Structure formats: C-alpha cells, structure tokens
C-alpha cells in the first residue's frame, strides 16, 4: 500500500476515481465542478432577470410595441421621438435639478453633521442625534411620501402653520410648478441625509488622532486643518458618497409619485416617472424602453465624469 502512487490510485478508480478525494487531482477536479455548480443558480437568475432584460431593453427600444399589437421594428424612430418629445426637456431638467439640489445639500449637511457630532462631549446626545438623523432612512419611500404629503399640505399642513407664525404666507408646496421641485428636494434630503451621514461618520472617525494632533502642532487648526488635512484624508469616501448619492437621486420615484403624481402638469415629473407612465400606463413598451436606455446611459456618463473629475481632487494617501 505504501508504495502505491497517487496516480495509480486514480487510475484504478475508473471514472469515479477521477473525482476521488484522496488524490490531489481528484480534489482539484471536485472543487472545479463544485465551483460551476455553486455558480449555477446565481447565474441562471442574473442572466434571466438582469443581463437578459438589459439587452432586451436595448432591443425593445427599436420596436413599437404595445400590449395590443405584435412588436413592430421601427428602427431609430423611438429615439427620433425622444428628440422631438416636447415633454422630455422639462422632465430631464427636473431630474437634473433634483439631482444637483439633493446631492449638494445632502453632501454638505451630512459632512457637517459628521464633523460636528464627533466633537460632542456628551455621548448620550451624540447617540440621540445620530439615531434621529438615521430614522428616515429606515422608512419606505412610500411612508415618507404619504407623511410629507400631509406635512406640506397647503391649508392644514403643519409646515405652513409654523411658517404662518413667522409671518410667511401659505406656500403652495405641491401645487405650484415653481416650488414643487424644491419640495421634492427637501423630501429627498430628509430621507437620505442619515444614509450619507453614516458614511461620513465612518470616514471621520477613522482619521487617526495622531495626524490631527500633528496638524495642530504644525499650526493648522480649525478651517485650515479641515481644508488641508481632514478633507483630503476623507476625499476617497467623499467620491464614493457623492457617486451613490447621484445614482440614487437619478432614480427617485416613490416620493414624487405619491406626493404629486408628477404634477402640477409635468412640474415634478422625473425621468423614471415618465418611463413608468409611458411603459405601464400607456403600455408603450418600445418607447418606454428607449427612455430607460437614455436614463441608463445618463447614469453611466455622469458616473464616468465623476470618476474623471475625481483625479483632480481625490487624494489617495
């Protein structure tokens, strides 16, 4: 037995011996087969529900297809329609405004909160504040939308009541085209602030105290230390937080859908809401897909630009 080599053992086992666990090659083959088996469920699912549909979406954007008629290949007509669709510039302007407004306010506030809360002496107060900021993150967009639609209500809403005490006239938060996007921005900031804050809190607490002390000794304090030491140190996290904030904001749907249904007119309609309306209300799958494609490309471009620009300001120490 002792003189038997691994190779002869393998040969003797026949076909099954190929996978025998007492030979090195057998183990290696077992593990390779197991690898494919383990990947199988995830791959079938991802191909069926993500990769496949993504390509089908691209394909569908070259068809006219509604629920009643069979699909009809129409070339680039859907994309020509996109260019001439008079509703689309306003809808994309809304989306852009929403993204810029939400991301800017959320990032600045979240960073300020993270820097502020780490300086608090009272642990209890810090814990209480962190929890308060985070609670809206736990809520569904639906719950937020329903809640804030009452809060912003023009006649009976608490917000207008308290503004009234300050002598401010009732603001038509959700019914005027000139204010409605601000209402959606406030809502989005309220909902997502805690999420971005948590990311910054992790970054700020991870800065080694020795570096901050060293900066103090070298005479960089306060604002100067913030600009020259703290911000460069957390700049990779700032890039990450901004990128996911932007991607999230480009896909905001639940809150405006529930609060305003896109109104007044198209005053608060975003690209995702328009895609939803075209595809599932008007049952125009082809044109809906072409809107989805533009949104996807927009997300890719914006994310790409952010990474390109990041070379100028992100510091990898």
């Amino acid at each position, binding site marked *: 037995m002792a003189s038997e080599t691994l190779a002869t053992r393998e040969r003797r086992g026949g076909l099954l011996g190929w996978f025998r*666990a007492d030979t090195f090659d057998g183990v290696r083959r077992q*593990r*390779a087969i*197991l*690898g*494919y088996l*383990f*990947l199988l*469920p*995830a791959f079938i*699912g*991802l191909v069926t*529900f*993500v*990769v496949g*549909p*993504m390509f089908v*979406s691209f394909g569908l954007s070259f068809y006219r297809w509604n629920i009643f008629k069979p699909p009809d290949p129409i070339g680039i007509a859907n994309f020509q329609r996109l260019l001439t669709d008079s509703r689309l510039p306003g809808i994309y302007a809304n989306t852009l405004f929403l993204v810029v407004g939400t991301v800017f306010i959320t990032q600045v*506030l979240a960073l*300020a*909160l993270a820097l*502020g*809360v780490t*300086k*608090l002496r009272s642990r209890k107060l810090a814990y209480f504040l962190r929890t*308060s*900021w985070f609670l*809206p993150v*736990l809520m*569904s967009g*639906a*719950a937020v*939308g*329903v*809640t804030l639609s009452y809060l912003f209500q023009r006649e*009976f809403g*608490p917000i207008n*009541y*308290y503004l009234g005490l300050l002598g401010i006239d009732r603001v038509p938060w959700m019914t005027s085209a000139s204010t409605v996007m601000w209402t959606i921005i406030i809502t989005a900031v*309220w909902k997502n602030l*805690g999420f971005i804050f*948590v990311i910054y809190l*992790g970054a700020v607490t991870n800065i080694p105290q020795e570096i901050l002390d060293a900066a103090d000794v070298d*005479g960089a*304090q*306060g604002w100067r230390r913030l600009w020259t030491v703290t911000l460069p140190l957390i700049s990779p996290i700032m890039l990450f937080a901004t990128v*996911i904030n932007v991607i999230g904001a480009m*896909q905001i*749907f*639940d809150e405006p*859908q529930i609060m305003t249904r896109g109104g007044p007119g198209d005053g608060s309609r975003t690209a995702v809401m328009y895609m*939803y309306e075209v*595809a*599932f209300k008007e049952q125009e799958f082809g044109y809906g*897909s072409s809107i*989805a*494609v533009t*949104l*996807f490309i927009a*997300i890719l471009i914006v994310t790409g630009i952010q990474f390109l620009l990041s070379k100028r300001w992100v510091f990898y120490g």
Partner: protein
Amino acid sequence: MAGTTTTVVRERHTINPLDRPWGQWLQTAFLIAIGLLTLMPLLWVISTSFRTLRDSFTVPPVWIHFDFDFSNYQSVFDTIPFLNMLKNSFYYAGGAVIGGAATSALAGYAFARLQFRGRGVLFWVVLSTMMVPGQMTIIPVYILMGVKYLNLVNTIWSLIVPSVFTAFGIFLLRQYFRQIPGDYEESALIDGANQWQIFRRIYLPLAAPGIAILSILTFNSRWNDYFTPLVFINSQHAMPITMGLVELQGEWSTGSIAVVFAGIVLSVIPVIVVYIFGQRYLLEGLMMGGIKG
C-alpha cells in the same frame, strides 16, 4: 520643553471661531436643530395616530397628548386587507432574504475559494450587473412575468423571484469568504470531510456576519420597495404594505389622517425592530454601499 513649544505655536494663530465657547454652543444648537427637523415629522405621525378622527387634523398640531385613542389602529384593518398586506410584505422580504443568502453564499464561496476555468471573467460579469439600475430591466422583466411566459403577474412570486439574485450579495459574501484562512480546509480534508461539508460546516458559519449584513439590507430594501410592486401588482390581495399605505391614503383622502398615520406606524415597526437588533450589521452594510431601499 515640548509643551512650551506647542503653546507658542498655538498663540501665533488666530483661534477658529468655531472652537470658542459660543462657537461650540452654536454648533451643538445646529446639530440639535437638524435632529429635531428629522425627528418632528415622525413624532407628528406617531402622536396623530393616537388621536380621535375629529381631532386629528387640528392646527396647530398637538405634539403631546394623553388621550390615547387606539381605534385608528382598528380602522386600518377594517378599511383595507392590511393584515394580508403585512403578510405579503413578510413573504416578499423573507423570500428575498432566504433566497438571496443562499444563491449569494454559494456563488460567493465559489468565487472566493474554488479554482476553476473562467472564474475571473465570470466574476467580472457579475460585477458589471451591479451597475444596471432596476428601472433599466423592469419592462422586459414585466413582459417575462406576463401571461405569455411565467404568468406570475399579480402574485407575490413576481416580486420574490427576481430579487433572489443579487450581484451585490455575491460580491459582499465573496469578500467575507476571502477573509477566512485557507488552513481550515486542509485540516478538514485530512479529517476526511468532503467539499460540501467543508463549505457547509466550516466556511458558511464563519461567514455569518456577512450573511447577517446581506440579510438585513435585503430585508429593508424589499420591505420598503414600492416601485416593483406598483408595476407587477394591481389587486389588493397581493399588495405589499407600501402599496397598502397609498391605498389607505386614497381611502381616507376626504376623512381623517389619523388612520393613515396608524398604518404608517404599523408598517415601520418591523424595520425598526430589525434596526434595534441588527444596528451594527445594517450600518456596516450601508457603509459598504449596500442596496438602498
């Protein structure tokens, strides 16, 4: 000596106003103000949900009161099939958690610990699907769910099945499996364990924190999902709770908001419970850029 040097340096520079006592006080006031702004709407919801129908829309809003009226919570269940909707949400979120953990653990383990041809390419494919937003795929998936193919529209399965497969989950668990030392495997082999046992008995339990993170993120994002159900579900019996809240708002649009708020409170309780018990995992997961609800 060192101490004196520091003092001298400090005196040379003007002190940041925010480090002065009143500056610090102002900062704390700002933090508390933001805290109140995020907290007030929630307090208002909870407080109003316990008011009588007649009092629920009073201006100014009453924040604290002691005349608790629980009838709104009863009305929630009388107006719409709320209990059934809670059940649907539990099935949706629970199914996504169990299925997602299973497929991601298997695939994550394969990518982290098993060697086979094409592993790098396949992992790259998985990563690239992480970039695809849900809205991009919803139209074809809706057609797939339709009568012609899977015929699952208007069932809870149309929500569960697609959410079981997550590139993020695979990525997350791969990271966890990679952190576990490979020595365990050799000793297990010597003890006569087979490859499945090595995965199931040794590596899977050690990846438990990763599975906890994935489960909590998945639970929250599916429990809070409104977009997918809105597309796939249109009859009340199959609706999850998020759609239920909007139904409730529609039912009571001319009546009282107290019932709607009672519904909101009930719908948020499960995620609050998950937050209380799984805070550490949830926060860690979010910091890794988890799936957002």
